């Protein structure tokens, strides 16, 4: 988790994409920065319901900053997860709850990667992160 890119650079990178193809490539590149979960960590309990791809989220709330880990079976979602994690890393639970994660993600220009059915998945992730 320590080697996540800075959120602002991710944002810049994604917002610079001029086509769906460029966004695709950017997300695939980002996906490589994710520390994958182990098979043991990918439990039914950690699974986020409502996503088209399989997504797992593990939140370990501590007093100062929480540790959040995540994984998905698709590269694209791993790319999105890198963006989300870099946004909330180092934040406490209360801080996370104050953030407008949805608006922030929408500002990333992910276009149809955040459409209806998949957006529901993203909303489920956001909800879980805020809990």
């Amino acid at each position, binding site marked *: 988790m320590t080697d996540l890119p800075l959120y602002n650079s991710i944002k810049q990178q994604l917002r610079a994409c001029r086509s769906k193809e460029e966004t695709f490539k950017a997300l695939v590149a980002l996906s490589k920065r994710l520390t994958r979960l182990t098979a043991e960590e990918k439990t039914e309990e950690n699974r986020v319901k*409502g996503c*088209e791809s399989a997504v797992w989220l593990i939140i370990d709330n501590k007093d100062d900053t929480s540790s959040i880990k995540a994984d998905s079976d698709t590269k694209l979602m791993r790319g999105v997860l890198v963006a989300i994690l870099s946004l909330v890393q180092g934040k406490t639970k209360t801080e996370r709850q104050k953030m407008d994660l949805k608006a922030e993600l929408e500002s990333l220009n992910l276009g*149809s990667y955040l*459409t*209806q*059915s*998949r957006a529901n998945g993203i909303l489920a992730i956001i909800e879980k992160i805020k809990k």
Partner: protein
Amino acid sequence: MAFDPHSLRQDFPILSQQAYDHPLVYLDNAATTQKPLSVLDAIQDYYRSFNANVHRGAHYLSDKATTRFEQARDTVADFINAPEQSHIIWSKGTTEAINMVAYGLEHLLEKGDEILITSLEHHANLVPWQQLAFRTGARLRVLPLTSEGEWEDEYASYFTDRTRIFAATQVSNAIGVHTPLQAMLTQAKQHNAFTLVDGAQAVAHYPIDVQALDCDFYVFSGHKMYGPTGIGVLYGKAHALEVLIPYQTGGEMVQHVTYQSTQFNTLPYRLEAGTPHIEGAIGLAAACKFLTQQDRHALLAWEQSLAHHVYTRLHKESQVAIYSPETHTTLVSLSVPNIHTLDLNAYLDSQGIAVRAGSHCAHPLMAQLGVAGTLRASFACYNTLEEADRFCDVLLEAIDLLTDE
């Protein structure tokens, strides 16, 4: 009367045709309304630019179709003031929506439980409950309402602690009268019954607020409110929709399937099996927009004034028996003793006038009124005063022609 239907009629090219060499006068709006160009355009646009199957796909067209399909749900939710779009379930029409509820609540009914309807119901809000009663041993009870839409003092005895379901129409399709809905719903809720309102005849005319009504279920058809055929709505409160056993199963409504078990999807999808009527949903949303863009109070006042005009003219004729209220209705239902309504209807038709003759899918109500059927002229916003007058004139001609000796 500031409202002028003539400009509105531009949106309805079907109305400017001849029927048997007479100008078509379409007064069968309670059966189905005509569709404005904006609805036709929405359908064309869907098929010409973004037709695709929804939800399951992830490509350019299916993203567009899914977005527009779910926006249609939003539009309909706003139209009836539903708190959330997931409370809007697409159905084929009012009939299917009522069947979905009747089937879905079956598991909660026991022998001796009571299902209460009113004496003004369309068969669609009667037969499904009767069959449910047959299947479960519940008792179908009928709250007698007068043809003025009033109830007797002893109404309270109909609502009991065994009343599990109360289903009533908002407006009678056969005679146009309003039921005392709010008072009945209050009674039903005091007895913890599930409540269903049949809004089929209301949505085209009256602004609907399901939260103000506070009913568990509200159902209506698109084709009676300027929308396409094959689409309708089951609105429900979250807890009410959640207790429904899915009436249909298959694709879309499941989360995971094995041969041993099936995990159903969340609302609204768990109640929508199979590929939905995507075009219908989009067309219905266009119909909602058509209506909300109008001055709805002016429309309603106009429709009521047409019915009132006909009422006033025909009330004077001693041969004519009118079953509709004098005011606050958008249709006039009548009969002429010793002349069959089908004969009257045939003559009106020969003059290009479309009304409806018969029992209006309400046999028990006809029995209550003591007639085999009535002749019903029902108005929509595009009807004119000339049309209302022409109906009266030709009806009187028909009576003359058909009176013996």
